[in-house]
């Protein structure tokens, strides 16, 4: 067995899929959902406006752990499936952001940036009404806002249903047919398992260890989270100036390495979470990523010397460097490499389909039926119907503009299925997501459309591959998929109603942005200016995106990608290494790669040796889940205090 297979096999064995599946949607879950909606949605929206940070993932843990504690004191049990579903629903609710509500658009349409650039009058009434009367009472419960709310509801409903059905289809392919390991899936699943085991009899040493590791991770996360995030947050709130013990989000060396490594973004992240993530990720994927990073370290100075990377200027920061390099080369190159990943995936899929290896055989129909299933034909049929609905709605909103219709067809029938599949494979193999940056902008510009309405369309562009991990986690925790779909059915009205009602309530408190919402007041104008800059690209003015797209560079990227796949396959390199290299080349923030590779090395050469490879592979996702739970809890606690301090000074004069 090659290294490749060994590591994949290790991941496959981290958690075993249970024999039976349970319906996790119970009344308690529903009460939990209502509780989160009532407390967490207004909290997260308000916090974002006041402090620029939501309660995020920590709210999931808060909800689940509190519920478990209550249930424990009732001498009752929550099954793994119930806990997992509660976790999922909490996540779906707390994922709401003010940008998904009409709060931002009501500002955008009246912002200085939109008015001065003439965009304000071009924004359609289904994004934000123009009539000043619509803003008089600062409420969304007016007739002028009905189209806006209807469109938001449409987007939310479609994306939920799409994700549910189409992601399941991709999961069937990557998990049941291709038998990919989904290395990051156990992180969430193992955390839930640890929590579930607190309710169960500690049958063996293994189940006891899960809680121990989760608790250690949690304590580690709390301590580090306090030092890294909590202290600056609290000092910022209490003394007006944040005092950071470690630089956040990273320390940027790029301006100082301009002579040694021109056009290379250098820096270092001190986030312990990245180090732990490096331990969780497949080792060869991390090595590949590091190699990819080293390649950019060597190639970028040469490319700069030969004027391929032309825009970069000495002294620029990481963000500027990455942006300029993207425009000059990596934007097109990534498209090419992503195409190669897709092509390689398809080749692999075909190979697997022909393979007689017992491991590569599809899982049993009994298992699939017990887990919850949708017929393949239904999924394909649904996909076509869904895309057609998107395209028809968008076409109607955009008055059937021909160029836009072509773009919609491209997204609906080429881009979305292709990249969803590529992502599903990458998630399955290396826990990675692939996206082509600025593809939407390029497509819109090339459509020949003149106006800004196109930017607000509910276009059929999505990446359904990401949710395959979630299905894998559900499978590992023995959660019946039917209960997930049932939960989604109940979630949608709760979320949409909560979001609209609480947005309106928050807007009713004071104008947004205004002194009541200091973060929005400080940042939203900048965001509006950036947005207007992007929107202006479809007003017939010059756009940098024209410059970024080059067929030749796309072809080079594709060629390089295929060549790399072929070469590495010939020498028998691990498949995770190949995907890792692609990730490293993709200009993902380089500063996190170093702590990640350090984590991977420490994990493999210290902990794995000390505890045994298989044990370590089982423990580290739990440690990671505990860590992120602890860090998130401390962040939420500190943000709550910020929230409290900012809320007590409210009158502007």
């Amino acid at each position: 067995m090659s290294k490749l297979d060994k590591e994949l096999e290790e991941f496959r064995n981290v958690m075993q899929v249970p024999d039976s599946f349970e319906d996790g949607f119970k009344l308690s879950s529903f009460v939990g959902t209502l509780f989160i909606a009532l407390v967490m949605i207004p909290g997260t929206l308000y916090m974002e406006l006041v402090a620029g940070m939501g309660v995020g993932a920590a709210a999931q843990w808060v909800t689940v752990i509190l519920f478990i504690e209550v249930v424990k004191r009732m001498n009752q049990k929550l099954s793994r499936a119930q806990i997992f579903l509660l976790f999922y629903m909490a996540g779906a609710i707390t994922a709401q952001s003010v940008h998904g509500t009409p709060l931002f658009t009501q500002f955008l349409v009246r912002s200085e940036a939109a008015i001065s650039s003439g965009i304000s009058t071009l924004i359609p009434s289904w994004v934000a009404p123009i009539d000043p009367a619509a803003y008089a009472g600062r409420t969304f419960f007016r007739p002028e806002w009905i189209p806006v709310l209807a469109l938001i509801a449409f987007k939310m409903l479609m994306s939920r249903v799409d994700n549910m059905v189409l992601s399941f289809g991709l999961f069937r392919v990557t998990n049941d047919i291709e038998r990919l390991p989904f290395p990051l899936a156990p992180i969430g699943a193992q955390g839930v398992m640890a929590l579930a085991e607190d309710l169960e009899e500690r049958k063996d040493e293994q189940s006891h260890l899960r809680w121990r590791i989760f608790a250690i991770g949690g304590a580690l996360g709390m301590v580090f989270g306090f030092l890294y995030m909590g202290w600056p947050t609290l000092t910022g709130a209490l003394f007006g100036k944040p005092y950071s013990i470690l630089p956040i989000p990273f320390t940027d060396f790029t301006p100082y390495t301009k002579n040694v490594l021109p056009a290379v973004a250098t820096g270092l992240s001190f986030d312990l979470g990245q180090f732990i993530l490096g331990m969780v990720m497949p080792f060869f994927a991390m090595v590949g990523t590091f190699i990819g990073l080293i390649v950019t370290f060597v190639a970028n100075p040469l490319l700069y010397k030969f004027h391929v990377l032309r825009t970069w200027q000495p002294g620029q920061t990481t963000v500027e460097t990455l942006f300029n390099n993207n425009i000059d080369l990596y934007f097109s190159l990534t498209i090419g490499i992503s195409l190669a990943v897709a092509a390689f995936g398809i080749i692999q899929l075909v190979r697997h389909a022909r393979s007689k290896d017992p491991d590569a055989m599809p899982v049993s129909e009994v298992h699939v039926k017990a887990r919850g299933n949708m017929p393949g034909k239904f999924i394909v049929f649904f996909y076509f119907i869904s895309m057609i609905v998107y395209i028809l709605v968008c076409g109607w909103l955009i008055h059937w503009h021909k160029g836009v219709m072509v773009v919609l067809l491209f997204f609906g029938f080429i881009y979305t299925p292709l990249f969803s599949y590529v992502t599903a494979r990458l998630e399955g193999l290396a826990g990675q997501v692939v996206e082509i940056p600025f593809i939407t902008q390029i497509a819109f510009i090339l459509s020949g459309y003149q106006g800004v309405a196109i930017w607000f369309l509910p276009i059929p562009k999505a990446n359904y591959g990401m949710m395959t991990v979630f299905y894998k986690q559900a499978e590992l925790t023995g959660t019946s998929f039917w209960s997930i779909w049932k939960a989604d059915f109940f979630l949608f009205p709760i979320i949409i109603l909560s979001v609209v009602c609480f947005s309106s309530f928050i807007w009713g408190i004071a104008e947004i942005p205004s002194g009541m919402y200091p973060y929005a007041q400080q940042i939203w104008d900048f965001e509006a200016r950036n947005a207007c800059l992007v929107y202006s690209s479809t007003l017939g003015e010059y756009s940098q995106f024209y410059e970024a797209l080059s067929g030749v560079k796309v072809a080079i990227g594709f060629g390089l990608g295929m060549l790399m796949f072929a070469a590495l396959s010939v020498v028998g390199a691990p498949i995770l290494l190949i995907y890792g290299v692609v990730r490293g080349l993709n200009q993902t923030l380089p500063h996190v790669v170093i702590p990640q590779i350090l984590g991977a090395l420490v994990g493999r050469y210290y902990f794995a040796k000390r505890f045994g490879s298989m044990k370590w592979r089982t423990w580290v996702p739990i440690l990671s889940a505990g860590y992120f739970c602890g860090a998130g809890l401390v962040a939420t606690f500190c943000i709550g205090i910020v929230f409290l301090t900012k809320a007590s000074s409210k009158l502007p004069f």
Partner: protein
Amino acid sequence: MQENSVIYRPNLLNGANDSGFPRAIGSTRLGEFSLNYYDRDTQWKYLLGGLRLLGSSPEKPGGEGFGYDRFDLASFDTIRTSLHDYYVLNESRLQALRERNIYNNSLELMHADTGAMIEEAMRAETNTAPNPTLARAQRTLALALAEHVYTPLRGIIDDMVKAVVILLLLTIPFAFAMERLVFNFTLITRQIAGFAGFFLGTFGVLYFVHPAFRLASTPMVIFLAFVIILLSGIVVYLIMNKFRDEVKSMQGMGSTVHSREAHRATAMAAVLIGVSGMRNRPLKTGLTAITVVLLTFTILVFASFTSKMGVRTTYRDRGAGVENRIEIHKHTLLSVEKEVRESLTALYGDRYHLTARNGVFYDITKNLWNQVNFERDLVLRNPTGNRLVQIEAIVGLMPGEVERVATLRALLPGFGAEKTPSPPLYLSKACARDLRVAPGQEVLFQHKRFTFAGFFDASRLQMAENLDGSKVLPPNYKKTVQQNALNASGDNAMDSALNNLDNNSFAWATADLTAIAPYDSLVDVEHVVNFITLLPKSPTENVGRTAERIARAFNYPVYAKDDAGIFQYFYTKTYSGSGMRDILIPLLIGGLIIFSSLLGSIVDREREIFTFSALGLSPPNVAALFFAESGVYAVIGGVGGYLVSQVVVKFLTLLASFGFMTAPEMNFSSFSSVFTILIVMTTIILSTIYPAVKAGRSANPGVNRAWKMPAPKNGKLSFKFPFTVSTQDFAGIISFLHEHFDNHADVAVGEFTVRDFRLTNKVVSGGKLERADIEAEVSLAPFDLGIGQHFRLSVVPTDLAGIDEVQVDLEKHSGTTTSWVRANRDFIDDLRNQFLIWRSLPAESVAKYRTQTEALA
């Protein structure tokens, strides 16, 4: 970046939404003008220092802002507009408070005075002989008064928000106690529902009766933040507890049965037993709770800790030989605003001689770049001898002041009557000598010519003081900063740092290096006007009253000398506890009620206490039981009394609205009311101390509350524990202690380690071990002291059949005797705790341990 020091960002707001303008708006203060740059015609509001330009109207007190019409701006009267806006805004806020029955007399009075001054200003303008100077002076002082109303008025609303936060905090224990007392549900879901019901009910009452929820929207938000902090805090606590348990487990002390957690759980159980005990005596509990609620209500009605704004008058000195006068200056002796001088002249010029002092000196609060040059230029020059002398300051005086103030008159006889070709300049002898000038000679300062008019007595000048004890000489700010190690960046920061110093901390300019010149002669050099004196024209003038009126509009103390002496007048917040004497008796009664109630329950519950004691509650736990009881009374009394007060006021106001009565002026919404209920709660808790201690003692009659170990003899310690065990129990205890000692085997953590645990003197009956002595070799922490001992635990039969005493024998092997005895305190304490924990074990665990022991035969 040099511009940053002169260009600063003002509080310019967008009139539409009261938010700041997004892009930086430069505002350069050039003399009296502000220049603001903006690219679009948007309504604006301006907030800077004491100015509030809002465009207020009675319909929209917050204002709609002003446009950029250049004609309007050209005739913009900032003082008149700001005064109007302040007045309208203050009126709307006071009205909002009045509608909720909240009155602050000091602010109402001051607000009324502001209105009167505005009317006077209007009359001065519209009289047959218009006096615009007087009108402007009236408005300037009215503006200062309006600002003095505005600031505390905002504070009142903030104060209410703070009060609500504290009340919300108290609502949590209140809801918990109410659920326990009223329902005492056994199921956790019902407990949560009961708690949530009381919490939401209390919150609902507060929401409807507390004006903070109407005046500001933030209480709701605070509530939300509060819930998020609470929930995440609980989960953090849960996870950290888990972590601690796991760490203990990894250290080999994982068996929670043996841990002190069990002991802590016992303490928590004591609290719950205390609350449950109250339920067992419903009549007594109900009556006591009602008494405390009514007590709080009474105290809230009688007592009010009100903070009011007003001029505080403080006697300073008799001021013998000092002329009657008023002195106005900043504590730092830095510049006094021109508007103040102008207004005082216009308003009091007919009754007072108004004089001012100015000076040329190094002002550290000003721009550093200017000061570097300025300090270099602080030089007197003798043009004939070409001599230069670096001085520290020039003091400018008005002849009117020198003539009327004896100290200055003695210092500068003939000042103002000189006949010199250029303005006269007085120097110390030392300075004149260094400069080599003689009276009548010309002296140059920067571009200005002076005539050296004569000497002054430097020591007299050095001693000359103002009414507040500060010197006539200006401070040497550079030395002051060095001397006091002040480190402040920015003008305002340095200004406030200097302001915090007392007079003795200032380093004053050296009299020998100071020159004196007439006030008028310095106005065309860079000078600072820093001192105003009002000298009464008539000896019957009421100087104190004038000083008090001025102090109301001035942000610094005003000093006045009248026939009664020297007084300081300072506008500040004054706290007064009205009815404090009235509440002492109710407080005492309340405290005694709780005291007698709890003391009585010791007698009532003697048997109960013994039972608890026998069940394993230690004396502190029994005391905690009583504290829990009084804590419940305190919380219920505090929050309940507060809610009753608010509801009563609401009801009376409602009756008043129908014309049945006049609504009483009671404000229970401020922080001071919350402070009052906290006092009541503290009194209740304090009155528990004695009953709790007494109950703790009665839990273990005849035995010292803290059991003391006897002294060692020849490296040996032998004693009996102050409790007994049943013979039957001891079999189980053997295995229980065995397990506990096993947790400490070969692990150098915790308080001790155990080696060679063995059972000796076994008594076997029917093939089962019934009794044995426990022996072991024990090392005690701190382990680096090398303390080792032989441990033996056995039982000794007592007179009562089946009841044994526990005998412990320790023999030191190594370590010093002192450290051995000290280290044994923790070890023995741990051992005693194990016996306490043993008594709280469930029956099945006891049976399990007994079976284990029996098998050791």
